[in-house]
């Protein structure tokens, strides 16, 4: 049974220019100990999705429809009080984007974690301090450093402390929104290994949100490729990376430098991500798609199961596979 299942989720922002359809009909499930990677470019709605999943909505945003079921509880229909008391941080927690700057510089790191525990759980300060020490140990920080201030920590250690804080109430789902941006590559590798160890040890399901295809490939069991508020492609990571079906996925893979390969030319996807107030008609990728035909402009493609467990939203995926000479 999935720990998180999202059905037809829609979240729009109201602006002067009209509704921004940042999350526009997403379906997915995550099981225990599973990592779902969500890949997309800036403005595709991936961070809005993470806010919607926590029900931490900016004042001009609202969830228009759909369901977010965490351990059987629906976040969308639950009242704010109920979300605060029973779901947020307890069931579903988040490592925020730019977590390095999320710590308060004037409080000791340990105290900030203790506070997050005592604020949500019925534990005494002593218990919370013990729990904090355990959490710090779990993320690879010497518990004696709980007395340090954030400026005494390196970027990687700050990120580890934020991970410890997000785990303080043992959530079943952890959302990691760009958990390694602004970190150096060796530090990033350490954080990746830590998240994978947490998933294995605690059985936490992780939703990894990133623009980095390589990072997602390293960590994820399943991958969703997001474009303009919708999923273009969704499936097991082996399926999506080895037999990409959507032209956008193909484009991203061609634009990405791979360190194993000899020097190669990188190919960009023409144009730029669309405006979500007035997204293109039909398939939202059609203005940038090298394969686009009339049908792509006229009709929105179904999100269909092209191969077992491998979903794609493209009218022409069969023809594209054939023209690329891919078997299957």
């Amino acid at each position, binding site marked *: 049974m999935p720990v998180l299942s999202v059905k037809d989720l829609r979240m729009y922002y109201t602006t002067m220019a009209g509704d921004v359809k940042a999350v526009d009909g997403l379906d997915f499930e995550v099981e225990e100990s599973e990592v779902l990677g969500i890949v997309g470019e800036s403005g595709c709605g991936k961070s809005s999705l993470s806010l919607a999943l926590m029900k931490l909505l900016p004042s001009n945003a609202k969830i228009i429809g759909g369901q977010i079921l965490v351990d059987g509880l629906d976040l969308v229909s639950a009242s704010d009080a109920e979300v605060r008391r029973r779901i947020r941080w307890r069931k579903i927690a988040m490592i925020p984007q730019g977590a390095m700057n999320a710590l308060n510089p004037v409080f000791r790191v340990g105290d900030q974690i203790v506070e997050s525990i005592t604020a949500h759980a019925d534990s005494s300060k002593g218990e919370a301090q013990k729990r904090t020490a355990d959490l710090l140990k779990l993320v690879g920080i010497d518990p004696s450093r709980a007395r340090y201030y954030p400026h005494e920590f390196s970027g*990687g250690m700050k990120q580890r402390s934020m991970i410890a804080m997000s785990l303080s109430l043992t959530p079943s789902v952890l959302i990691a929104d760009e958990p390694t941006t602004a970190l150096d590559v060796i530090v990033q*590798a350490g954080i990746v290994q830590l998240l994978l160890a947490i998933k294995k040890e605690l059985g936490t399901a992780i939703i990894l949100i990133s623009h980095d295809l390589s990072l997602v490939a*390293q960590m994820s069991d399943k991958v969703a490729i997001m474009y303009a508020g919708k999923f273009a492609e969704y499936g097991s990571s082996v399926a999506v990376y080895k037999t990409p079906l959507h032209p956008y996925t193909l484009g991203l893979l061609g634009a990405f430098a791979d*360190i*194993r390969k000899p020097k190669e030319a990188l190919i960009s996807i023409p144009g730029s991500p669309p405006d979500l107030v007035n997204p293109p008609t039909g398939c939202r990728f059609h203005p940038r798609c090298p394969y686009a035909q009339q049908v792509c402009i006229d009709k929105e493609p179904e999100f269909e199961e092209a191969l077992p467990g491998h979903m794609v939203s493209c009218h022409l995926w069969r023809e594209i596979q054939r023209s690329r000479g891919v078997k299957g």
Partner: protein
Amino acid sequence: MSETGEVVLDVQHLVKFFEVRRSFSESLRGGEAPVVHAVDDVGFTIKRGEIYCLAGESGSGKTTVLRTVLMLTEPTGGSVVFEGVDLAKKTRKELKPYRTKIQVVFQDPYESVNPRMTVFDIVSEGLFINNLVSSREEAVEAVLSALKDVQLIPSDEYLYRYPHELSGGQRQRVAIARALVLNPELILADEPVSMLDVSIRAEVINVLLSIREKRNISILMVTHDLALAKDMADELAVMYVGKIVESGPAGEVVAKHYHPYTHALVAAVPVPDPEGVKIRVLASGEIPTNISPPSGCRFHPRCPFAAQVCSDEEPPLVEASPNHYVACHFWKEAFVTFSKGQDKPGGPDAHG
């Protein structure tokens, strides 16, 4: 003048120390002020039409090298010889004619172009400041040709647009056009694509590659992305705490390296393949501070190959194979280990 192979920039023994600011009471206590060894004896040469890349983590000094070549910060020691002239010995006034010949493209195109200026104003500003054009028509012509070179086509449609009407990739290309319009010999690019989305990164990279091709301009690029450096650069130098630890042909440094630090960097880069080799953390601990860098080889506290000699003696940069330099006492042993697919001496197979 524009023959390929001629050295455009020759940096030797470049040193840049920054004094750490102390409070008044600390300075009364006397003694030397602590010093940040941002760049410590760095040397390299760039030939005409060559793309030279400095790679390293934050704090490695790569951006300081770039700022020093621009003479935005004065070097503490060493020489920066550009077309036969040592810029480090010039006064500010004497540097002026060189300012047009060395141009720079910054990291963030959302910050580096003025939102209140049109594309024409942004690109032409340098022409007017340096009195390179006598009329507006001349300026328009030069700007159009620069915009065409950065693939902003049809160029006349872009002239009077404002940055907010452009995407990130287009803005960065405007920034490149601004550098290009002055006909520079050398362009310095500081992480030119790290702020851009993956799907449009390639367009900026390809523009830089094409202007090198077309105008035979040399490019000194700073990046933390080794995969990108491998695809873009001819020569690649890896920096660690103010020093170059390995340099050589870019593809060779990435695929057939000698230095344990280079190996640790490459092993930490994720690959876009869920079944590929997993990333590994091969350097223990964290990057040391530049204020009191470790003795001997600066990488020794984190290095799996380290022995006594590494903390006692600083390894010289030696030519391990043609044009491929490494500063490590144990580069031969390291190379043998890496070519067996192992990460550390006597270690298990990296791929298994």
